[in-house]
């Protein structure tokens, strides 16, 4: 067992949501459901930005419910504002190595390597507002990858991208995940993303209820309902 949430209740203002799930090393999980059902709150709770008021979050047999966001095994990509607008693409990525990291020979090599991987080498000196939405997403992914955290949390960071571009970026992520045993937890209301990512699913309903499904059981139960939408 790698990461497990047992009856984790996460509080966001006057609203709270409870969920149970587990993710094995290198596997993926989708938090799927309609808007406003608490998917992002769960993600923020996992990352340490919202309190877990009941239950426990266990990572490698240790409770991480009460530790600082920086010490958790996650890197979170938000829906927007993932990059600092006054820093170039490469400086944004360098921040992943620490706030005090300098662009010296060694770090420059690491940053260039990751820029190559996400296909942004040519854009390294440009500011975020001068590159496309897809390129901004890639830059944010690059910074997340450089931090080498074992679990990547995605709070619909590609929602504004078109279907093909979104799939292209997800494919890149799946590729990296396979090579580095990286787990991905994705928030989405689009069944196509859930299908593409694979892995298990936590289904959120509008009344705040959640249910954990293994991949196969999820699709055998909901394929009739969801597949027509995907097609």
């Amino acid at each position, binding site marked *: 067992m790698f990461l497990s949430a047992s009856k984790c209740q996460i509080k966001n203002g006057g609203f709270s949501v409870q969920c149970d799930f587990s993710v094995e090393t290198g596997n993926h999980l989708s938090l799927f459901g309609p808007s406003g059902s608490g998917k992002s709150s769960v993600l923020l709770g996992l990352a340490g*930005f919202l309190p877990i008021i009941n239950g426990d979050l266990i990572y490698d047999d240790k409770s991480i419910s009460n530790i600082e*966001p920086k010490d958790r095994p996650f890197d*979170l990509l938000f829906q*927007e504002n993932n990059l600092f607008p006054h820093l170039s693409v490469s400086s944004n990525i360098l*921040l992943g190595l*620490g*706030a005090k990291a300098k662009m010296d020979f060694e770090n420059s090599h690491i940053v260039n390597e990751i820029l190559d991987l996400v296909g942004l080498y040519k854009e390294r000196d440009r500011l975020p507002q001068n590159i496309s939405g897809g390129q901004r997403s890639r830059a944010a992914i690059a910074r997340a990858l450089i931090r080498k955290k074992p679990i990547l949390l995605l709070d619909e960071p590609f929602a504004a991208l078109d279907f093909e571009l979104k799939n292209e970026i997800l494919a890149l992520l799946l590729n990296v995940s396979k090579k580095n045993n990286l787990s991905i937890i994705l928030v989405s209301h689009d069944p196509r993303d859930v299908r593409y990512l694979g892995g298990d699913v936590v289904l959120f309903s509008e009344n705040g209820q959640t249910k954990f499904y293994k991949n196969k059981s999820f699709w055998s139960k909901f394929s009739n309902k969801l597949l027509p939408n995907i097609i």
Partner: protein
Amino acid sequence: MGIGSILVLTTHSEYNSLITPYETQVIIFTLYQAFLSATLCLLLAIPISRAIYRNEFFCKNQIISLIGILFVLPILVVILAVINIFGINGIMNQFVIFLGFEEFSIYGLIGILTGHILINLPFAVRLLISGWSMIPMEHVRLAKQMGFDTNAFFKYIELPMLVKTAPSIFTIIFLYCSLTFSIALVLGGGPSATTVELAIYQTIVFEGDLATAARLSTLQLTLLTLLLILAIKFTGNMFIEQTIIIKNDISGPKTLLVHCLDYFFIVLFCAFIFLPILIIIFKGLENITIPTGNLILPAINSILVALLATIINLTFSLSLCLLIVDEKQKFLRALFEVGSFSIICISPLVFGTALFLLLFEHIDISANALLLTGFTNGVLMIPISVAILLPGFKKIKARYGKLMNITGVPRTSELAKFYIPLLKKNIKFSCALVFALSIGDLGIIVLFSGADISTLPMYLYRLIGSYRMDEAYFVAMILLLMAFISFWLIENGNLNVFKRKQMSD
């Protein structure tokens, strides 16, 4: 307008461009005190606004709302409060003497700085709170995720916001401190602490020397316009952002020392800002038995002046904003924009004197003093309302511009059908500010009015001048309440309430 005003003065005098050593000294002092005032305001406002924004404390929202109202604190009320606290017989001097030290004098540079800071600090704090609230929550969370320490948090999250916001706040305060004369008039200390605006007032009122006034005004207008252009070029705009989004969980890493410093700044600010107001209200209530017969007419006059100023200001600023967003040529659009902001650099006294020179042969200036004061106040406050309204105009044009073209709404109806309904909140804020500032402003009525026509600030000024302090405190309290209440009523009052009531009846 500024150049026109100066031209009127030069054509009515024997103009020469030779600057005397005294005038040089006055110009240097003006820039020096404005620089010090703006710098001190900003240096104090940064930690104060940050402390207020990122901490939860008793009455936080109410204090933020009150800071907004403090924009309209009448200058004469501030002066009276400064004298009461820091003057020869003031609370601070009594305390200093009690401690066994020698008494100090507030008059001179210290007095001018204290007055300017008292007036401008709430303004700077309010705008910076807006700035802090505009930092994306995601950036704060990214910082926590990446384990930024206090220095890194300041460098990557806070500093970029300050670089964007602070120059325009500095410029507005600098311009304001260069152009007000009431504070230097009462709290300045003779020739060594005279500002350009005060020198212009003295040369016009006491010496009738229009040539010197024109010369000083030319220099002032040139210097301040240059500064304004530089500031616009550097910051990209001079907008006043009124929105504050209160978010939870917005603070960066905090040590115990930082936490204590935050609360020190909050207490210091509250004491510095609210003590003078409380003193004026307390002293005013102490003298409440004073007959108010002489007060009613100046109060009504003040309301009339403010009403006229608001109507004129709204008409001009709405038209200017429409002109700017409708202009297709980039250069002309920039010119109109800089032009409307540069009105802030015009000396109110020179503008008033030019009006006087143009009109005195045609109308009875003294009898029309209220009209002229209202007109001047309305025109000279255009930069404030444009700074509030123009961002909204630009957003609407960008979002609905094509829709307006497609639907074929005539240009003349665009204001009524789109801009005014969509910008109701900004328009109310702008009107509230202009009305309340105009009610409390001594302004150029000092040039126009005879003994028979007076506004409340003018009446208060005469009371202070004749050392009738008990009455002055009472009038100051009334003036303060009028400014605050009118601001609150216009900004929050919903005139539709009356309509709905009538319909339900």
